């Protein structure tokens, strides 16, 4: 009998799909130009013309939130792709070669864990000036050791299996085996980790942009919108609500999706419920 899909998977998939859809639509259409200022129409209440009102420069809040969604998804995607591909390659390499290479890769990964994304972004911002690119690099960097560990642990299991031994007996080299036999079979844990790291990356981008180390004006970002709203908290408290809700929905969606995928693909790891 098929077990029903876990609740967290379904809620997560729905929320993540919603955020991705909004981000995708914003590329082609937003109610207004997200950066278009209209000072006479500043601080408008939510209404028919502006669904969530306007900000201190009369910019439409919904349009900004939508454009920021696209930005946030792009940052998370690029950071996880960079960090994931380097990390998985290192993990595969460590597992395939073993010995001192494996030790070296894993010790270097341990050192990577000493740097939260914030510290790395601070260093890059101090040297090169704050920018979204530096934020992406910082988030990508902290993902490398995460993926290296996951990939190595999963790959080490595959290397003990009979079909790998058969491939070796057939004379295929370690890199060929890693690519053709190990990589496809560690896809499940890697994809689960990538989904979870996607959520972490969204949160990290928001925090870095809030602190001024990420998206620079006029590039729209939920984190930067919150930083601006905080200075206007007595004038327009509602502006400090919406961007935070967006961040929460996006992080919750991808986080639940990742948890749910893990429960489905690896029942041994699912927690006590």
């Amino acid at each position: 009998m098929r077990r029903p899909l876990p609740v967290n998977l379904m809620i997560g998939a729905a929320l993540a799909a919603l955020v991705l859809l909004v981000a995708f639509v914003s590329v082609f259409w937003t109610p207004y130009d997200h950066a278009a200022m209209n000072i006479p129409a500043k601080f408008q209440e939510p209404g028919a013309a502006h669904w969530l009102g306007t900000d201190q420069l009369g910019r439409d809040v919904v349009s900004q939130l939508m454009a920021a969604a696209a930005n946030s998804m792009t940052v998370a995607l690029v950071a996880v792709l960079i960090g994931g591909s380097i990390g998985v390659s290192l993990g595969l390499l460590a597992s395939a070669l073993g010995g001192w290479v494996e030790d070296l890769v894993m010790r270097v990964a341990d050192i990577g864990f000493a740097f939260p994304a914030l510290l790395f972004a601070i260093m890059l911002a101090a040297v090169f000036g704050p920018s979204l690119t530096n934020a992406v690099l910082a988030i990508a960097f902290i993902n490398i050791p995460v993926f290296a560990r996951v990939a190595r642990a999963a790959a080490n299991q595959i290397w003990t299996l009979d079909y790998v031994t058969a491939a070796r007996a057939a004379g295929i080299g370690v890199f060929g085996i890693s690519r053709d036999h190990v990589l496809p079979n560690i896809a499940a844990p890697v994809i689960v980790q990538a989904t979870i790291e996607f959520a972490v990356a969204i949160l990290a981008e928001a925090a870095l942009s809030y602190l001024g180390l990420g998206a620079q004006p006029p590039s729209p970002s939920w984190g930067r919108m919150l930083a601006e709203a905080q200075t206007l908290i007595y004038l327009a408290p509602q502006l400090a609500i919406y961007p935070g809700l967006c961040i929460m929905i996006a992080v919750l969606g991808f986080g639940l999706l990742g948890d749910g995928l893990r429960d489905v693909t690896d029942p041994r790891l699912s927690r006590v419920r």
Partner: protein
Amino acid sequence: MAFFIFRRCVGFVLTLLAVSVVVFAVMNILPGDPALTILGLDASEDALAALRAQLGLNDPAPVRYVSWIVNAVQGDLGRSHSFGVPVFGLIGERLGMTVALAVSGMVVTVALALVMGIGAASNHRRFGDWGVMFLSQIGIAMPAFWLSILLVLLFAVKLRWLPPGGFPGWDDPVAAIRALILPTVALALVQSAVLARVTRSSALEVMRLDYVRTARASGFSRQRVLWRHVLPNALAPIVTIVGMQFASVVTGAIVIENVFYLPGLGRLIFQSIANRDLPTVQALVMMFAAIVVAANFIVDILYALIDPRLKGRM
């Protein structure tokens, strides 16, 4: 056991050195001229040359690295450009603020998480359990800086019970504590969401064991069994996560200080970025990274002390 601790100590020192190499490399060897970064593009060639000499930039990188480490070990972290004083003194002035925030945040985190986690486990599959799990899911997805803004909105702007930010100094302890309440709560609520989940699942696993049933059967009250029999045996995974969280509490403090305008090391690091004060940034990043490494080191040691089953294997 002694050998295990010795090995971990060596590993700790080696990791610290490796981390310092990374910090130094990113701050010094990457393309870019620190003198130009500090003085700006329109600086004269003489001024640039003078600053390069003062920063020791004419020496080869390995020499500068070694002198940075040797000086740092002796308490000399270099001079801050923007403040014109030794970085060591700058850190000393602001350390108290960050330590107060991190320690109070950690204490509230652990207290909240234990109460929520044990409470959820003892109400397994009932309303209290679902409530805690739901709240912690929200807490994990909520950025701490947004929670801070919401707390300010409610308790400072609407109710006017607490100040929205700033720090009056320790001369007036009541005002100082009032200024720390919202930052501490913002820091702790988000962190305790993760820890409460770990506490719950760890407690649930222990509660299935026979000796817990025996303890209940021999007449101990439910609460006594929970806190005296279940909790101590559920501690090992909790301590691991607490150690990992100490690192995120410390970096979280960097963010929270900036949300609430608290004059700690987190504010200093951002002022230094704005002022292009590279020696100060380098010293502070190294300090925070060292705290993260030290927290992991202490967790490893505690883990071995708490869980005697691990002793034989180390």
